[in-house]
């Protein structure tokens, strides 16, 4: 077989693999509870963020560092981006840079308003927003807007 088609095929496969690698996984009202249930036994903090949200971008590295510190005690950070699918690669790259554990997720509900209400009826949808779940999978606390790490750490410490 000639070398050029093999090279082209290799390049194409590499591009496809890279594209798949940088995609975030869509999440909605059906898959979100399964995501939380899969972490039963752990303390889960879900961070809704977006690449266009400056306070979110400032907060994520702090959350990533906290997770690294608390991982051994059963703490998990799950990130859910509110970006459009076209921004997946940019969002993925940002998660990589901040040291956030992957996979990352992206809101992909039929109706955004219904999904926001499903997560927390008191949530306006404004970002950033954090939702803390106990080891039994029940939501314990919601944090709307920029949150001091101290408040997060205090809430998590009650669940350890």
């Amino acid at each position: 077989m000639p070398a050029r088609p093999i090279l082209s095929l290799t390049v194409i496969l590499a591009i496809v693999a890279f594209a798949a690698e940088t995609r975030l996984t869509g999440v909605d009202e059906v898959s979100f509870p399964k995501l939380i249930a899969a972490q039963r036994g752990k303390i889960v903090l879900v961070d809704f963020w977006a690449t266009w949200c400056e306070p979110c971008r400032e907060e994520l590295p702090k959350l990533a560092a906290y997770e690294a510190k608390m991982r051994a005690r059963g703490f998990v950070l799950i990130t859910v981006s509110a970006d459009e699918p076209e921004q997946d690669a940019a969002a993925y790259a940002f998660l990589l840079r901040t040291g956030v554990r992957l996979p990352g997720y992206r809101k992909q509900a039929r109706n955004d308003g219904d999904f926001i209400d499903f997560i927390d009826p008191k949530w306006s949808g404004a970002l950033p927003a954090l939702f803390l779940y106990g080891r039994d999978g029940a939501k314990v606390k919601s944090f709307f807007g920029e949150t001091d790490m101290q408040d997060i750490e205090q809430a998590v410490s009650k669940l350890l």
Partner: protein
Amino acid sequence: MKKLLLCVLAGAALAGAQEFKLGSPVSDFEVTSLKGEPVKYSALKGDTTVVIFVSTVCPISNGYNDRMKAVYNDYRVKGVHFIFINANATESAADVEAHAKAHGFPFALYKDAAGAAADLFGAQVTPETFVIDRNGVLRYHGYVDDSVQEARVHNQGLRQALDAVLAGKDVPMAHTKAFGCTIKRRRRAS
């Protein structure tokens, strides 16, 4: 980003109580022209009024610049009055004026530096829109439409609300979840 002498904090935690609720009257409030003059809502409103909170720097608010211009152009000829308000403590009147010129906005913008108007409406993000009818009642609160990507828009929240109000009908979806960057409010002294 400019450094400020004031400490600013986004989010609802330090906002004042929301006064204007759907189905209830909107009372008079004040904003500031870009020249620094106080302007009352009563001087700006029309039979049908749209209040939109916007930002110069928010990528989502900017993603709606063309659509906001289009809504303005399409509905002002039907007698709708528009009040575009920048309530971000981090954005000066000069910033707003420069941004408006750069983007060719055909409408006036106002500042709400203390966030008082934003608090009255319960506005959290930019862009966030409100429609008030001829009786002064708040009839719609929410997004311009449901996706910053035009190809993905399913619901034209603001346009649908305006069409319903102008036709004297109920607004089918009176409340939608506005999305965008949080309004950067000034920290209030406790």
